[in-house]
Every structure is written in structure tokens, then in C-alpha cells.
């Protein structure tokens, strides 16, 4: 593969996933980069930028600092800003040049924490992976650091929602719809990682009986909570009546058995192709299969563990791979910026996501939890 894209877009990168995941948590996230990343993230990937005063910055790395290994400038700038701005925590996330120079994120984080007394994370993002990887590592690290260990699980059904960022779910209320689904199913929502929850709620995540992972960005924290509290997780976004029932059933099964539940339902070979993030795309594909009786498969274009997908699904990163995998598809469901590579004989159904097209189609992103039926009508 030549790693080329003649015409399609690029997914949001790992470093932006870190920023997005931590955005609402009162920390100070610093992208260690020369310039440009901050503008990119705040323009295209962050719908909350205008209205929420979250602290996301860029270090402004220069050529000489990179060559001379001058980490003191970065440390000094962060310490100075932190002393004035009083963040709850500090996160330093990497980009290509720190990757090339072998920047030691762990040591720098320790030094900053020693100087400021503020909990500090170093994230070895490279700028070369998708947002899923960055968001996943950020949520996991936050959980390992801040979730209270001495809590008792609730005696009634309860759940956390893991993997919520605007990159996958924008700010159209999908996060609240997922919470509502859980409440209607009799589960108390302990916390939502990481949209719309207070720090206190997140700290109590260990109380939940089960975790609902709604995107691959939630897998890291799901595994951490399983390790720390034995909490099992279920993967899936509750969209469509029948699929949502399956998710609900899986949640109860997970609580009962203590085992993780990955929903893999049997379906015909996919004449419908869904392109996008792994867990949400698989949820949509399976919901379509259950509601419409037509086979749907997933082309997962972001990082996702293979076990999350079925045999007929594929992980496809590059334009050329995706074009090949679209052969035979009757319907392609994907972000509008994929449309130029939709085969002529295939019908294209737009499903925008911030992670691929940024803010361009923000107002057209559907809430598939509440509005699945309407969307299905467009598909069929």
C-alpha cells in the first residue's frame, strides 16, 4: 500500500483524541508540536471550543529546541502556565517530531508533577494513528489515576458509558440518548466517559455493575475498570429497537456472568457496507440486519481490535483498500467525504462524523439512538 488518498479525507489523529477525551475534565492538555495542531483540533475536531473554556494548548516546539533536546523550555512553559491557570491535571501529548527525537513523555510528566504538585500524564501519541488510539489511552490513564478504589458496587443495576467523544457522537444529544436508554432499561448511569459527567461522577465509576462501550475509544478504560473492579463490559451503541434489546440483554448477561459481552449476531453477507469507527459501525450494521433483514458488513477505518469485528468485517485504513473492499456493495453508508470513491453501481447514503469530515456536516449528523428509524428509511 502506498498510503495515498487521492480524494478522501483523513481521520482525526491520536493527539486530537487525547484532547477530545479530556476536554471536559478541567485539565490542561498540551500538544507538544511546532504549530498547526492546535488550530486544526480547535477548528475541525472540537465543537465545544467556542463555548467551553477548556485548556488545550500547543507547546510551539522550534527546530533548535528539538535538535538540542531542550525539554527545559517545555517544562518551564507548562509549569508557569499551570501555576497561573490551576488545572485539575496536566496532559502532554506527542506528535511526529517528539516521536522522531525520542522524547521521554513519562519522565517529563514526572518532572512537571514534581514541580507543580499537579497530577500529570505523558501520552506517547505520534500523530500517525487515529483519534481512537489517543482517546482510548487518555480515558484509560485518567481512570487509573482518578477513579476511587474504595467504592462498593451498587446493589441495583448500574452502568458507565465509555467512549463518548464528539468525534464519534458530535454534540447532538446522542450521549444523553444512550444514557436515557440505560435508564429506561433500569440501569442507573454512574458516569459518562467523557461527555456530560462531573469529575465526582467519573471518580465513582467503580460502583457500576457493568460498562457499556460505545466506541473503540472506550475500550482502554473498559479494560482498566475490569482489571480494577472486575466490571464486565458490553460493546455496542443501542440503535434500532431490536438491536437495543440485544444490547440490554447483553448488559444483564454481563452483570449476571461477570463476563464481557461482544455482540456478534449472525447475518447474511454484506450487500450493505458501513464505513467508519469499529464499534459504532458494527452496531449500525447489526441494527440494519435485525431491522431490515439485509446483510451489512463493516469496513473499519480506525484502530479496532480484531475480536470486536466479525469475519465478514474488515479493517481498512487506506483509500485503495477501501475501494477494493467496496466491490459488490449495493449500498455504502459512510461520511460524505467518502462519496467520491463510492462505486458507480453502489448507492451512497451519507452518515457524517466529526472524526472524518470535522465541522463541515455537523448539523447533519443524526442521532442514531433516537433517530434510527428515520435513518433506516434513507438506507432502504
Amino acid at each position: 500500500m502506498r498510503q495515498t488518498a487521492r480524494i478522501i479525507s483523513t481521520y482525526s489523529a491520536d493527539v486530537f483524541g487525547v484532547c477530545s477525551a479530556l476536554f471536559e475534565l478541567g485539565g490542561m492538555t498540551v500538544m507538544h508540536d511546532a504549530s498547526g495542531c492546535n488550530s486544526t483540533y480547535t477548528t475541525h475536531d472540537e465543537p465545544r471550543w467556542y463555548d467551553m473554556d477548556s485548556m488545550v494548548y500547543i507547546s510551539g516546539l522550534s527546530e533548535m529546541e528539538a535538535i538540542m533536546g531542550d525539554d527545559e523550555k517545555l517544562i518551564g512553559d507548562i509549569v508557569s502556565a499551570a501555576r497561573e491557570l490551576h488545572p485539575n491535571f496536566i496532559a502532554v501529548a506527542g506528535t511526529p517530531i517528539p516521536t522522531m527525537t525520542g522524547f521521554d513523555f513519562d519522565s517529563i510528566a514526572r518532572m512537571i508533577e514534581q514541580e507543580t504538585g499537579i497530577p500529570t500524564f505523558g501520552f506517547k501519541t505520534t500523530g500517525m494513528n487515529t483519534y481512537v488510539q489517543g482517546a482510548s489511552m487518555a480515558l484509560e490513564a485518567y481512570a487509573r489515576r482518578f477513579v476511587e478504589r474504595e467504592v462498593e458496587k451498587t446493589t441495583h443495576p448500574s452502568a458507565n458509558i465509555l467512549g463518548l467523544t464528539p468525534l464519534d457522537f458530535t454534540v447532538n444529544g446522542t450521549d444523553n440518548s444512550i444514557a436515557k436508554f440505560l435508564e429506561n432499561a433500569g440501569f442507573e448511569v454512574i458516569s459518562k466517559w467523557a461527555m456530560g459527567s462531573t469529575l465526582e461522577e467519573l471518580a465513582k465509576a467503580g460502583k457500576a455493575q457493568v460498562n457499556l462501550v460505545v466506541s473503540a475509544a472506550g475500550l482502554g478504560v473498559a479494560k482498566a475498570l475490569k482489571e480494577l473492579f472486575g466490571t464486565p463490559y458490553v460493546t455496542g451503541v443501542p440503535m434500532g429497537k431490536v438491536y437495543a434489546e440485544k444490547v440490554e440483554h447483553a448488559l444483564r448477561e454481563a452483570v449476571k456472568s461477570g463476563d464481557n459481552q461482544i455482540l456478534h449476531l449472525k447475518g447474511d453477507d454484506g450487500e450493505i457496507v458501513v464505513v467508519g469507527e469499529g464499534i459504532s459501525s458494527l452496531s449500525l450494521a447489526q441494527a440494519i440486519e435485525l431491522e431490515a433483514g439485509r446483510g451489512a458488513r463493516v469496513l473499519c477505518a480506525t484502530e479496532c481490535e480484531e475480536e470486536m469485528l466479525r469475519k465478514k468485517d474488515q479493517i481498512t485504513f487506506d483509500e485503495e483498500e477501501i475501494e477494493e473492499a467496496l466491490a459488490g456493495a449495493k449500498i455504502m453508508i459512510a461520511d460524505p467525504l467518502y462519496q467520491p470513491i463510492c462505486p458507480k453501481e453502489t448507492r451512497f447514503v451519507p452518515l457524517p462524523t466529526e472524526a472524518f469530515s470535522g465541522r463541515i456536516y455537523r448539523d447533519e449528523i443524526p442521532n442514531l439512538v433516537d433517530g434510527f428509524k428515520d435513518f433506516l428509511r434513507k438506507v432502504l
Partner: protein
Amino acid sequence: MLKKVNAQISQEGAQITIGDASFPEPFVSGLEYASPARGTWNIVHTGMLIPEAHEIFVCAASCLRGVVLTAAEMHAEDRFSTVAVREHNLLDGDMEELIIEGVSDIIEKLPVRPPAVLVYTSCVHHFAGCDLDMIYRVLRERYPDIDFTDCYMNPIMRKSGLTPDQLMRSRLYTLLKEREMRPDAVAIIGNDLPTDENSDLMIYLKENHRKIHEITSCKSYEEYQKMAESAYYISYNAGAVAGGNMLSERLGGKHYYLPFSFCYDEIENSFTKLAEILGTPKPDFTGKREACDAALKETRALIGDKPIAIDYTYCPRPLGLARMLLDAGFKVERVYLDTISGEEKQDFIYLKEYYPGLLLYPTVHAKMRFMSEKEPSDMLAIGQKAAYFVNTNHFVNVIEGGGMLGYQAILHTLELMREAFLEEKDMRTLIQVKGMGCEGCCGL
């Protein structure tokens, strides 16, 4: 007096009176913030000024993300492609091959062969010691029908040599091929936005029957190539001077930098010098100063003591503008800028002496995250960033001087101020549009 931004944060370090400020860096550099004002152009917008050219960016995903969506937002996806640099490329040492084969792959897949391809390499190529000369040699041999030029997205070099902005403006003219020169032909170079037809420059050149070329008005690659017939290159954006000199050295025309200014003497001196260079009659300035004085008076009478904020994205001389307005009795309270250009040193010294209380604010300082006004203010802003920070819908929505020049820049600025005073704009929506005006001058 410094005040608390909120319970915990003071304005210290993110606000200074010009009387206390140092030249050219009034603020300590540190972590940088990005405000939501997006109107200025980036290297994607600028590159698209070459008609029919195709842009190929070779970078990591984090760098590609902003440029690919810039192209998508300007509906230029079909003129834009990418080659993703991945971690294994750093380890494998195959960066040259990645660029050559990636660019070739894209060219072969394009539905129409472009006359020119702009290949943008990035910081990683610079740090990896990539052999760019070899890469372009191979590409030119492989595709002799395509003109290639080297472009750069390497912001890490912004403090070493030419800035990315200067580099990009210079790259716009590297594809021009030598042709017979016309002594009456003039190329205005280095601007993103077209020079205003009513500007002093356009009027003067037309009055003297000059053939005028400007990249912003070229509709085809052939038309772009005709710029090379120009015997004179005129720039008025300081970022274009290096490119103008390079062009002069390569094609042999004469480059003249005619600075954007609000100072009557400077305007007249620079236009007089232009006339000497072109061999044209001395411009007639009769009544111009009086017209500007009258417009200043009229505007001052209308606006009164309404506080004014100016930012550096409005034009290359924000301090020059502040000086002119303050001298005319306007209540200019704030200027937003991160550094002071060498061209503004005299204005800085003047303001320091005569208006020491004028407040300077940065735009990227970390505290600026918290220093935009939360409630709409009663200020009039000149420039998008100033409008955002003071939170007003009464603002002049122009970037990079908007193609104005000479006395016309003064008159038009005042006209826009009067308009902004009388009419509100949807600031929140307007300032977030990337590359203001690019839809009108990129052949789109």
C-alpha cells in the same frame, strides 16, 4: 490596572501598556492558544491560487487533518491529495520512496493530468534528512509534462530562516517560465486577496496603461504563465518580499516593495518611487490628504468616543492604524498582536511616547483562553480576532488588508468603520470561516 480574569487568574503577562512594552516581543512566549477566529489563509488556500495545479501533502495524520479539511471546506477536494507518513516510514528509512511512489500513484489515478503539482513535505522530512532534490529530479523525469514545485509544511522552521508564510508566497511563482518580457507589463505578487480595483495602485497602473497581472485573477495555468512577461514585480505584503527577490533573480524583472501604510508621507514617497522605477509620471496626490482628513473627521463625528480594538490580522500595520486613529481623536484602547514587525518600529516608538496608555494584548498567550469578554461589549473592533476577544458584532471583517492600498486603504478603512458602527454582523459565524475570500479567487 490589571484585573482578575476570574477568581484565580490575573491578566498579568497577557496585557501591557505600550508605554511598558518592549520591541519587538512585548509578551513572553510560552504555551500557545488558538482563538476561534479563522479568517486568515493557510498554505492550502494560497497554493490553490495557481490555477489547475494539484496539491499533494506528504505528512503524518495530525498534520494532514487540518489541510485536508481546509481543501474540503473550500470545495477543492478534487485538487488535493495526501500521502500519509506512518511510524514504520520513520524506522524503515524509505521516506524518499514513499514520496516518489505516493505522488506517482496519485498522479496516475487523477482523472485529468494537472499541468502542475505542488508537493508539500513536512517537518519529519526535514529532520530525517530526506533527499528532496533527488525526489523532485525523479518526479520531473517520470512526468515531464508536469511542472513540480517544492512546498513546505514545516512550522518547526518558523524561527529559522524564511517563515512558512514567506516560503509559501515565494513558491507561488517558482513555476513561471521565462518568456519575452513586456516593459509595460507589471505583476502584483504575493497576495492572497486580489488588489482592490479602486486602490491607488490599480488606478495608477491603469492610468499609465500598464498591463497588470495578478495571480488572484488568473483563471488558467496558461494565464498564470503569462505573468512571466512582466518586467516589474510589485509586492506590498512584507511576507512576499523574499519571493519577489527570488523571482527577480530567476526571471530578470525588477522587484519593488511598496509597503502598505497609513502614513501620508510614506504613501506618497513609495508611490513616487514606484513611478521612478516604472518610468511613469509622478502620481498626482492633489486633494488626497484633505480627503483623508475629512473622512477621519466625519468618522470620528459618527463614532465618537466608542472604544476601538484593532488586531494584526486586519492589515500589516496595526500600530500604524492605531497611530492614525489616535492622532485623529479616536478612542483606540486596545491592539491585539503577538509580535511587532520591524516595519512598525517607528509607530511603536511614537505610540509609546504619545499614547503610553494604549493597551497591547497577545492573541496566543495561554491566558487568552480566559480573556475574551463573556458578555457582548460596547466596543468597535477592526479585525476578526479583536472582534472575538472584545465580543462585539460591530466589527470590520477584513483580513490581510483586504486588497486595499495607498490613500484608498485609509478611506476604505474609515468607510468600513462607519459601516461597522452602524450595522451589526454575525461575528460568531463570520470569524470561524477559514480562509476568508478564498472562494472568490482560487478559480473555484
